[in-house]
């Protein structure tokens, strides 16, 4: 295996999957929200829900399309660049991905067309059903992906036969504890992404003093959901940390930048890890806290990186910093969501322009948290592809040349940069135009040209002084 081709393959996988996750992270939450909006509209008949539905459906369409096409790549890239992995883990990862495709992709794809084009052609209950099926599809897809990745993190339920991982206990593969903390962690992250994007859009409109009625609904729903989910997310995040501590001690040590065994262990808050001297520079740490976080104990011994052979250690800087960025984003979002919800309840949110700016500018935070969280998980798993069993260096296609890998990486970067810049620009334009900016003929419900006409009907959220 050519080391350059290996490095390029890793870069290509990291790039294409980072690009891909941006869209599902957004659409999983958004699909669930669209289902709620459609149900609320059908139940209450209030036009604001329909207006918001149609508006976010447009954005959903663009993001979903980009998620689908960038996702197809993933199904084939295992084979093109990681043929040894595909051969060895095919008997386990293949069926899991087959379940994803069968149960999730087809469901999404089948009902997505109806969601976008089918409203005039189907009865309302079926339209709501289709929306729910798209949401269910996105969620199932996330589930199977988390099962798949969790198996690579903590391989279980298999025996090694003739150079293949042969499954001998599917229940253990699917229902092991690791899946059931990591899947909720990812699902909540997606809901938070949707919630913050919706809330940020609401804040943006209030700052621009347009679409006041819609903006209030978006802010209220987005912030309330985030305020409720964030504490749960932090708790589940802690459980994810527990599995890393139990099953992947080297990754845990890297995240904590703990170079040597400590008893009781301190917690490094921030530092610059230096692998050449196996120590941290400019470290700020708190004694004993490390043991408390890792083992809920005041005196536990925690393992350091030097307990592992050099060739079995993950890189330190990326997991260390990525993890701290993720947690930092989580706490900033928690503060914004709680403060915003509280001020909203007191009817003071609209006047708190500083907070509105904060909420508006916070929309990248959930994505940053998701990406850095994944970098922590995946870089921390190195040097293994299947943890403890198959090294990344041994998993790649043996005859892949550096020139072919270079060409494909350049093509991916060029095409993705091209569609990403246009895609985000189109989404920005849709968001900027707002709910009344829907092109084409008017909807069959009255769409207010003046947002105030809607706000009149919603006394609960109308406040004095615009």
């Amino acid at each position, binding site marked *: 295996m050519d080391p350059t081709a290996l490095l390029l393959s890793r870069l290509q996988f990291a790039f294409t999957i980072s690009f891909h996750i941006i869209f599902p992270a957004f659409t999983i939450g958004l699909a669930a929200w669209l289902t709620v909006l459609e149900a609320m509209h059908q139940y209450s008949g209030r036009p604001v829900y329909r207006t918001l539905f149609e508006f976010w459906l447009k954005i959903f369409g663009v993001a979903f399309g980009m998620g689908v096409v960038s996702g*197809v790549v993933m199904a084939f890239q295992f084979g093109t660049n990681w043929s040894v992995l595909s*051969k060895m883990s095919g008997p386990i990862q293949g069926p899991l991905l087959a379940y994803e495709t*069968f149960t999730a992709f087809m469901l999404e794809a089948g009902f997505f067309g*109806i969601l976008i084009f089918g409203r005039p052609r189907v009865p309302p209950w079926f339209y709501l059903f289709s929306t729910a099926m798209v949401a269910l599809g996105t969620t199932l897809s996330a589930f199977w992906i988390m099962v798949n990745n969790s198996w690579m993190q903590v391989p279980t339920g298999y025996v090694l036969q003739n150079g293949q991982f042969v499954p001998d206990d599917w229940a253990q593969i699917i229902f092991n504890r690791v899946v059931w903390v990591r899947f909720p962690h990812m699902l909540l992250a997606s809901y938070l992404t949707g919630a913050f994007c919706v809330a940020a859009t609401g804040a943006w409109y209030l700052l621009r003093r347009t679409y006041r009625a819609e903006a209030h609904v978006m802010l209220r729903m987005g912030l309330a959901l985030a305020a409720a989910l964030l504490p749960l997310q932090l708790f589940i995040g802690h459980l994810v940390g527990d599995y890393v501590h139990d099953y992947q001690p080297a990754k845990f040590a890297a995240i904590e930048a703990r170079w040597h065994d400590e008893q009781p262990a301190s917690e490094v808050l921030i530092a610059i890890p230096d692998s050449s001297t196996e120590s941290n520079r400019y470290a700020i740490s708190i004694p004993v806290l490390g043991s408390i976080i890792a083992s809920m104990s005041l005196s536990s011994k925690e393992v350091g990186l030097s307990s592992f052979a050099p060739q079995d250690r993950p890189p330190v800087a990326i997991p260390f910093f990525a993890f701290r960025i993720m947690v930092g984003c989580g706490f900033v979002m928690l503060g914004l969501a709680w403060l915003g919800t509280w001020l909203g309840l007191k009817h003071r949110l609209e006047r708190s322009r500083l907070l509105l700016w904060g909420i508006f500018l916070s929309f990248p935070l959930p994505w940053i948290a998701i990406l850095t969280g994944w970098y922590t998980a995946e870089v921390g798993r190195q040097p293994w592809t299947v943890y403890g069993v198959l090294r990344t260096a041994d998993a790649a296609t043996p005859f*892949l040349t550096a020139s072919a890998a270079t060409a494909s990486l350049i093509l*991916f970067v060029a095409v993705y940069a091209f569609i990403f810049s246009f895609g985000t620009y*189109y989404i920005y334009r849709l968001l900027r135009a707002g709910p009344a900016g829907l092109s*084409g003929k008017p909807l069959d419900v009255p769409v207010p040209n003046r947002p105030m006409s809607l706000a009149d009907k919603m006394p609960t959220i109308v406040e004095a002084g615009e």
Partner: protein
Amino acid sequence: MVTFWVALLAISILIYLLLDGFDLGVGMLCGLARSEAKRETMLHTVAPVWDGNETWLVVAGVIMWGAFPLAYATVMSAFYIPVIVMLLGLILRGVAFEFRSKALRSRWIWDVSFVAGSFAASFMQGAMVGALVEGLQFSNGDYVGGTFGWLTAFSALCGIGLCFGYSLLGACWLVRKCDGLVRDAARRQIPPLAIGVLMFLIVVFAYALAEHLPILQRWTDRPYLFLFPLIGAGAAAVLATSVLRHDDYWPFHMVALIFAAAFGTLALSFWPYMIPFVLTIDEAAAPHASLAFMFWGAGLFVFPLMLLYVAVGYRVFRGKSVQAVDHY
């Protein structure tokens, strides 16, 4: 179990060929449409279903990985460049559906990417099949053909042939789904495209004879294989008369039948190999535990459900396509 999954793989590939075939074909024919209104109408006939159509490629891909991991790993890595170019083509044409309607001045970019992406994906698919038929270089089961081992005159010819084939299917789809100018234009395109496909078949056959491709021996061993070209010829005759009678319904079904016949020919010529003369189906198959796990859930229950989704989708959007009210 192995038989079940090889059958399901074949069915999925065939469904993919037929469904994404017409929508890639419409993509290529869009390049011939001069006016914005025509392109819009053409695009609109496939917009509600393209995503589902393309998903069958993923279905085929993951069945191959799950049930035949050795074949998946070998084929994908040997076809590194064509697979990636195909994927990029599918990306460019896929996003064009959504982006086109959101664009103002930049709409032409998405028209170009729609057409070019459709061509790239179709050509690469044809070329890969051609390379499999002609035979890739292996030594002890490892691919040794190099980065461009798949690219030969024969595989390029197959790539072009598939572009013609998909376009023909696309034209028949347009005849079925459209009215007026678009339908008439598509109907006029059917004869030249059909002749193109016929020429391609003749040339491929002649080449195979001249080069003594080992796959030809299958035909002397298995005379029943001649049944498929006969079905194809019958379908072609019905196609010709239905086009002459200006029928909107039958051409699509007849070209689909020709595709099915061609696919059947190829699949049975490969049997029992997955990669001809290198890897058999049984050698490539995953352990029983994997096949059984997929069979008792995905295969037995979810696969029929998937067919149901497709049926629901096509039923909701049945009949002649009408312009969307608000989207696109």
